[in-house]
């Protein structure tokens, strides 16, 4: 149950892109085509699934207050927490290199589809963010940490897939010239984020309400209506353009 809850929470409620804006840079840069977006998304899931549990072990047995107690009781009051940034990023950078080498050796076809994205990922904030959130939310066990890595990766994957699909379609609509490209992508992402906020009510059995739930349900319904309206407008614009082109 705990696992299921964390799984859904990290995919929908605490979605990396829409709730915390992690990995926005590659999200915006690599979302022009669905196929490349799928490649990058898959690579992110993979790397998160490897690095979050690894960094969990590091945090548990090396970094947190009193973590060194397994060395002997005289080490009990060491707190190396301030080193976590540098250790986490070093783990991530080396893991990404390692994964790249291993994948290249054993699965050239996977390497060809993921390969170019792997180096990009070392500096994707979603990866480091995953580890830092894992640390600050005090995730309890190694299995939960693995679960957290995979599910937040899936959340990121869904987000980039959705925006890539929308951007492929929006090419046919008549966006105001200054908004074309980056501007409209920002605004669509914002609207999608508002849509994702409505998932906040999903786990209301929980004692600590997720952020953003205080906004009443009426607002959420309104948001949905706004979204639908926009979609309708987009469709209308597409058909209008087709007519014009003819």
């Amino acid at each position, binding site marked *: 149950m705990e696992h299921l809850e964390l799984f859904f929470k990290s995919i929908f409620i605490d979605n990396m892109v829409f709730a915390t*804006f992690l990995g926005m*840079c590659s999200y915006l840069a690599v979302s022009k085509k669905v196929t490349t977006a799928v490649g990058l998304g898959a690579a992110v899931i993979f790397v998160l699934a490897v690095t979050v549990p690894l960094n969990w072990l590091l945090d548990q047995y090396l970094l947190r207050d009193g973590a060194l107690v397994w060395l002997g009781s005289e080490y009990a009051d060491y707190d190396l927490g301030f080193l976590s940034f540098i250790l986490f990023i070093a783990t991530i950078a080396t893991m990404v290199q390692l994964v790249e080498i291993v994948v290249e050796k054993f699965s050239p076809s996977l390497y060809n589809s993921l390969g170019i994205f792997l180096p990009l990922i070392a500096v994707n*904030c979603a990866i*480091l*963010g995953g580890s830092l959130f894992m640390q600050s939310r005090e995730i309890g066990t190694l299995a939960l940490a693995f679960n957290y890595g995979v599910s937040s990766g899936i959340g990121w994957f869904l987000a980039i897939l959705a925006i890539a699909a929308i951007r492929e379609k*929006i090419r046919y609509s008549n*966006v105001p010239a200054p908004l074309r490209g980056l501007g409209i992508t*920002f*605004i669509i992402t914002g609207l999608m984020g508002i849509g994702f906020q409505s998932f906040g009510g999903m786990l209301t059995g929980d004692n600590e309400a997720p952020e*953003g739930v205080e906004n009443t349900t009426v607002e959420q319904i309104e948001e949905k209506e706004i979204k639908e309206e926009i979609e309708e407008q987009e469709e209308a614009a597409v058909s209008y353009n087709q007519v014009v082109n003819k």
Partner: protein
Amino acid sequence: MALLSKKDAGLILDPLADNNPITIQVLGICSALAITAELKASIVMSISVLFVMGLGNVVISLMRNIIPSKIRIIVQLVVIASLVIVVDQVLKAFAYELSKTLSVFVGLIITNCIIMGRFEAFALGNGPWRSFLDGIGNALGYAVILIIVGFFRELLGSGTLMGIPVLGDPIEKTGLYSIGYENNGFMLISPMALIVVGIIIWVQRSRNRALIEEN
């Protein structure tokens, strides 16, 4: 400005508008959006980035001839991470409340693409003084957007600036509130940051048509 030649001044002034790191180069967006619900947090974040970028660019530029290109990403990450640790510890010591609000986003300066991007694009090919100016310029460009977004979100969302009420008291119904003005709580939720940046891009590109992209 006798200190700076015209070319050097350009390094600082260009990123403020026509080559802005956020709206034109699309760098460093992650942290720009998540912490802008309050003006104060935006300002502190800007100062932290200014510090890390200015010093980081100098360090990388001094080492540019001895870093083997194959491992340069790891070297860059280590340089940034060390500087960020300094920032994080200083914040925890002198502004503990604020460091709680910024939470992991101070750490995420490490992977802020604006820093890596400028290292790769500029500091690896230029001397320390020019790299320093480039770092300062880009950090200021980043700060401008952060402060604009933070200003509007805090003003419209909670009617305060830096925590000080400027539009009157919403409970006592003074100031603007006495004529029926209400705070727009919508501005405080995080997706609104994206929409505000979208609008900034819109305004900027309609003023300077040369920046308009093809679809």
